[in-house]
């Protein structure tokens, strides 16, 4: 494994940081902006790992990981970054990596060019990580399926034009299976519930998705009929890595703020960095960032080489999300009353970070997965 950045990777990273600092700080914090989304499309961010023939940049996972980290570093609205990464890794990438040519030709260019914002709909009121408890059903109907049910806590739903929906199906032997469908917002029977108010990530709005006799053509099946579990597992493992890459960048930004503040803030005639109880917190941030980066680059390398990353993705997700929350708490602590005030924006970052220990499988679920995958002796 070689994690040495190439010149192209270094240059692209600099460009992303420059772009995000110059272009993505104009919007109102916590409010999704289609205009900023289009800027990201025009820059090429939305199509980073999509082949050039579909309007993307055709980058590998290693380079994509570097750029996502850079985006998280330079864009201070973590909700907006989450809206982007959500679209990229649990919708667009499923079409890109698992979709057949018909599905790619139909949607992929539109997704990279800003026509479709996507999201992933698997969670339901009574079904989270235990996906087979889901109630949403897809019934065969001539050359398509009819979907009925509702999906809950769907990130991007209020702004989305398309959804990858996982629903229960029945195979020829009468066995219960899962199948993934690409559903357009404009399909008859699709409706979006009321926006769900939440404690953070406001620029990535969330809502319920309702499907009432929604007819989906067979060609809109993602991957293969009855293989929805594979699609779901693939989506989750990619999400656990590449959505969380941006959090490492956010941690870097927070650490830099802490170093600056610890140098400037004086108490008892010396900068607070000279108190080890302060500097140790910053050191802990650096250790977490370095370890998270190593894991990220290792996993991206494995993904590029088509190796299994299921266990790695859970370990990474768990470590990054808990490190992110710890870093946000320490950042507030170092900044004292300024950190606690709304003016500095550090409290909103803490609220954003807490979501990372919940979505894509809670920390508790990640620990369960990790144990079940190492308990193989």
């Amino acid at each position: 494994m070689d994690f040495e950045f190439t010149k192209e990777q270094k240059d692209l990273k600099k460009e992303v940081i420059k772009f995000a600092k110059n272009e993505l700080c104009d919007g109102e914090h916590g409010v999704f902006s289609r205009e900023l989304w289009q800027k990201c499309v025009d820059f090429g961010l939305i199509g980073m790992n999509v082949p050039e023939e579909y309007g993307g940049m055709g980058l590998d996972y290693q380079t994509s990981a570097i750029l996502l980290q850079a985006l998280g570093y330079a864009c201070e609205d973590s909700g907006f970054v989450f809206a982007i990464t959500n679209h990229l890794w649990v919708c667009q990438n499923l079409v890109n990596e698992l979709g057949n040519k018909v599905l790619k030709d139909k949607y992929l260019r539109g997704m990279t060019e800003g026509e479709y914002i996507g999201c992933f709909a698997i969670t339901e009121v009574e079904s989270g990580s235990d996906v087979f408890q889901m109630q949403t059903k897809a019934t065969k109907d001539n050359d398509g399926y009819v979907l009925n049910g509702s999906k809950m806590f769907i990130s991007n739903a209020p702004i989305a034009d398309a959804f990858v929906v996982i629903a229960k199906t029945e195979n020829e032997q009468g066995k219960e299976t899962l199948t993934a469908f690409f559903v357009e917002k404009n399909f008859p029977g699709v409706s979006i519930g009321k926006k769900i108010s939440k404690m953070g990530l406001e620029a990535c709005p969330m809502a319920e998705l309702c499907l009432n006799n929604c007819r989906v053509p067979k060609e809109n099946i993602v991957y293969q009929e009855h293989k929805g579990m594979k699609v779901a597992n693939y989506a989750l493992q990619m999400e656990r890595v590449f959505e969380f890459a941006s959090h490492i960048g956010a941690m870097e930004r927070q650490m830099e703020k802490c170093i600056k503040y610890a140098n400037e803030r004086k108490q008892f005639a010396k900068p607070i960095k000279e108190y080890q109880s302060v500097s140790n917190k910053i050191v802990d941030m650096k250790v977490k960032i370095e370890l998270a980066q190593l894991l990220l680059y290792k996993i991206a390398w494995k993904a590029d080489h088509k190796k299994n990353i299921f266990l790695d993705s859970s370990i990474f997700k768990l470590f990054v999300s808990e490190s992110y929350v710890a870093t946000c708490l320490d950042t507030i602590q170092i900044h004292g009353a300024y950190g606690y005030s709304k003016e500095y924006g550090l409290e909103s970052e803490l609220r954003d970070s807490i979501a990372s220990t919940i979505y894509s499988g809670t920390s508790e679920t990640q620990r369960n997965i990790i144990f079940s995958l190492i308990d193989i002796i």
Partner: protein
Amino acid sequence: MEEIMEKLLAYVTKSTNSKEIYSTDNIFEKGLVHSLFAMQLILYIEKEFDIELEDEELDFEKIKSVKDIAELVYSKM
């Protein structure tokens, strides 16, 4: 080959909490496996037999029994 089969049979029996599985049983039709089983199986095989598997190699449309899995492992050694 026999040794591989025995190890796999013991592992699948234990990890699916089954009383008895035969090497030619379709473990998927029997409803023995859960959503994490495929990942557990890949990691077990890589660790126990010191080989690397790509996701696509464990195509459960073709590989349905312990015998099928043993043949795949044998072909990779």
